[in-house]
């Protein structure tokens, strides 16, 4: 699920955001939790001390709607007692508060263990001692003055209004997760994780017809610092509309967006039918997220998400068969928790496992899932794949997807060359509406921009486009993936799963990819 972005935490000022908590204090506090849990009967315990900073600059047209810097600081203790998990969290970060919370976690585990069930089996994990990891950023977004961010957004909004937009909303969201993890395995892991998301939406109204169109930014949320907002010509992808790699030019994109929103008002409404689709990475990342990354989550495959996010059309049997053709031979999918610039990149996951990279689909065949410590044994793994994550200190950690990406084609192929080969197709840029069933068979996706391809050429803009497909049929219709020159990351801050629902930040990389014979529907309706 991709729910709306939610605000969290309490308001703080900017200078406060640059404070950090001394690692010696965190170690001492951690030992209180671990020792208390052990003394109360826990066979395993971990503690996460989290300080989550969140700064949002939100504007519309020529005014600032909100400048909010918030902090959420607290601890979460997880314990294993009688083979059952217990968890408790508090914002009372004192030795006394932590000890009480550890006791509470043990009480929760004991209450639940009376229900019975198979005892939890944890994959062995060595302790790393005292280690640390930091997102490799060039500019800390929290050190950039608020005025600079406000000025950038208001300048961008001004460009949109000058170009004829009726409304424009824009924002910069910066996140810093200062996470400290300690466990009875002997790990004390200090991590400093940074993420950034600039975004906007331009609206153009047609008052006569009573209609309106919007165009959102072609930016991506990134695991980077403020350097992402420093434009660079070498990071631009030219074409029918400019797209961006590791640097984003908001002023250029918002001007293009304003033109696009105006064009959309009069664009031709699509004729429903079968089309070959050419999908830009700014669009395809979401299709990968929903139809590949989610069904290969092991907790879904096993049934742990049955009550909310759902299960999966994949199974342990399909994996074990070694010949389940998820997609065509062009489809190579990897799970990767290390990829530079990605949202999912961390040194260690939220149960103290050092992260890595692995194949999930190789030459079209399903070869692996995504697992954590208490699941590894279920697919014959001796160690976790490091996919454990909690959205904050007050939420329990559980299996979340890593960056899941489609590998670029090995044969040289540019986007222009790909389009030249299409007789009747639609080229889709940017992500729009999205929906998929609870086992990930049937999906429907919209987009931001749709271009009609006829006989190898883009002939104009289309509107009211959405495509529907079955996951396995769709990925088996993948006939070509452009090479690594076109490879880009897309992603989301708000990948939702679990109860209570938690958001995970994750990226998905791909080059432009072609799928043949996909069902396109027309989404235009009138009310009243």
């Amino acid at each position: 699920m991709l729910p709306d972005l939610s605000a969290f935490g309490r308001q703080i000022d900017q200078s406060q955001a640059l404070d950090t908590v001394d690692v010696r204090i965190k170690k001492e506090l951690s030992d209180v939790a671990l020792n208390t849990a052990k003394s109360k009967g826990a066979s395993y315990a971990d503690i996460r001390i989290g300080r989550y900073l969140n700064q949002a600059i939100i504007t519309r047209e020529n005014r600032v709607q909100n400048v909010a810097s918030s902090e959420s600081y607290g601890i979460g203790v997880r314990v294993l007692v009688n083979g059952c998990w217990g968890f408790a969290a508090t914002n009372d970060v004192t030795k006394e508060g932590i000890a009480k919370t550890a006791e509470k976690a043990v009480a929760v585990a004991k209450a639940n263990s009376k229900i019975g069930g198979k005892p939890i089996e944890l994959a062995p994990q060595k302790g790393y001692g005292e280690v640390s990891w930091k997102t490799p950023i060039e500019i800390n977004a929290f050190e950039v003055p608020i005025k600079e961010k406000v000025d950038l957004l208001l300048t961008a909004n001004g460009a949109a209004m000058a170009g004829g937009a009726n409304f424009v909303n824009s924002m910069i969201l910066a996140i810093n997760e200062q996470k400290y993890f300690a466990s009875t395995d002997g790990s004390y892991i200090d991590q400093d994780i940074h993420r950034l998301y600039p975004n906007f939406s331009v609206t153009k109204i047609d008052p006569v017809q009573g209609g309106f169109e919007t165009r959102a930014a072609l930016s991506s949320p990134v695991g980077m610092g403020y350097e992402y907002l420093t434009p660079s010509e070498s990071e631009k992808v030219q074409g029918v509309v400019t797209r961006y790699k590791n640097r984003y030019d908001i002023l250029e994109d918002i001007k293009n967006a304003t033109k696009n929103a105006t064009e959309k008002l009069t664009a031709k409404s699509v004729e429903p039918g079968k089309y070959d689709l050419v999908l830009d990475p700014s669009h395809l990342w979401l299709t990968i997220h929903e139809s590949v990354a989610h069904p290969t989550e092991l907790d879904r495959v096993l049934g742990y998400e049955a009550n909310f996010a759902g299960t999966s059309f994949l199974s342990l049997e399909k994996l074990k068969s070694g010949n389940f053709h998820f997609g065509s031979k062009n489809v190579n999918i990897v799970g990767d928790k290390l990829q530079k610039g990605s949202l999912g990149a961390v040194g260690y996951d939220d149960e103290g496992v050092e992260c890595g990279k692995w194949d999930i689909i190789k030459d079209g065949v399903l070869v692996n899932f995504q697992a954590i410590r208490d699941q590894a044994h279920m697919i014959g793994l001796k160690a976790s794949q490091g996919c454990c994550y909690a959205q904050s200190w007050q939420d329990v950690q559980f299996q979340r997807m890593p960056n899941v990406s489609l590998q670029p084609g090995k044969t040289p192929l540019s986007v222009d060359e790909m389009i030249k080969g299409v007789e009747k197709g639609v080229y889709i840029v940017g992500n729009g509406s999205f929906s998929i069933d609870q086992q990930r068979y049937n999906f429907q996706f919209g987009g931001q921009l749709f271009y009609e391809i006829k006989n190898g050429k883009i002939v104009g803009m289309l509107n009211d486009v959405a495509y529907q497909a079955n996951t396995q049929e769709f990925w088996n219709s993948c006939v070509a993936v452009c090479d690594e020159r076109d490879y880009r990351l897309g992603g989301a801050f708000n990948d939702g799963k679990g109860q209570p629902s938690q958001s995970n930040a994750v990226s998905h990389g791909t080059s432009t990819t072609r799928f043949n014979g996909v069902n396109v529907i027309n989404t235009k309706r009138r009310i009243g």
Partner: protein
Amino acid sequence: MLLTQKEESDNHMPILNKEEAQTLLKKVLSYSKADECEISLTGREGGNIRYALNAVSTAGDISTTTLSVSSTFGKKTGTAAINEFDDASLEKVVRRSEELAQLAPENREHMPLLGPQTFAESITYNANTAAMTPESRAEMVAKSLDVTTKANLSAAGFLENATTFDAMINSKGLFAYNKAADVIFSVTTRNQEGTGSGYAARGFTDVNKLDTYSATKIAATKAAGSIGAKAIEPGKYTVILEPVAATYMMENMFRFDARFAEEGRSFLSKKGGGTRMGEKLMDDKVTIYSDPFNTELPAETWDRDGLPLEKTYWIKNGVVQNLSYSRYWADKKGVKPVPGPSNIIMEGGDTSLEDMIKSTERGILVSRLWYIRMVDPQSLLLTGLTRDGTFYIENGKIKFPVKNFRFNESPVIMLNNVEALGKPERSISVESYRSYLIPPMKIRDFTFSSLSDAV
């Protein structure tokens, strides 16, 4: 350096009563030197338990308290918050909000704070729910598992309770307080082969009304009934939506914002300008309103702007009756502010679910919908899927379970096609977990666009 280690705990605050909250807030307000100051205090204590494959998977117990101060000089506002409650920390948070206000850009839409208001006492608190413990949660889950283990089904479920309080004071003399308790429960039951699935969801203010055993029984019946689903052609069908399905379908429609409509970017915008207030947009049978004093679905009696929340009709007999106006937009338009919905209640009819089925020549009974997303905000066209029990009706009888459908439909179009309504039931959205009071409904010409193999 703010984040230092302390030897003794002074952070943890219990759920404060009205007098305790007011005393604390008055003390904080006494530190203020700003033109205007508004302080809010919130607290939450609660726990959850989650189970899958007939065993507990995760469970937690969480408590948080936060105090937030907004100081305003002219039209410049700064906000700061803290979760430490000693006098020095309380004064510090006020000073910090004042410093931030001086640095903030001017908000041209800032409205002066409201003076004292009269708020009726809400009925949102329940002592039984507030008294829940890890043990009582585990017992309720054990009752649910009793059903599924005996029926050889696999259960995945979630139970969560929370006790919360919200209090607010401002320098113009306004004070407001509310205490609430709530519990939600949902369960999905599946057979071992994964060919049948059923669901039930419940939400209550009073936990004594929650019967996890009988809710799980209903889910188990749906699971058994959905085995062996047949594929039938998608297209336009008469549908009977159970409340949990209707709730999720309509949730995207409950945005009655006047500003958005007047700006021309809402389904309530009028062609050529203005809003559709006073226009008949839906069937006569459709009446939707908010009422904080509904005993089944109580809500707070004041909103964040300090405005009293009262019974408000949004749609009455199909006609758009009210739109919400923020204080700024109301002032600009010269009308009275109208707070947004405190809760949503849809009036029902007297047709039972059984009678709806009996009167259906050819149709589909929908138990639950899933992954609904906006396709077109102008027409409110939504897409999503059926899930956990979809049944074909012919000549007044349920004939057989059918494979799930994807739909592309607008709730506005749907509410023009109402054939019959049943008795409203409290139901929770399967995505937002918000509670609503919505009747089961029979709808003609509902658009299914494709089939799904998902169970």
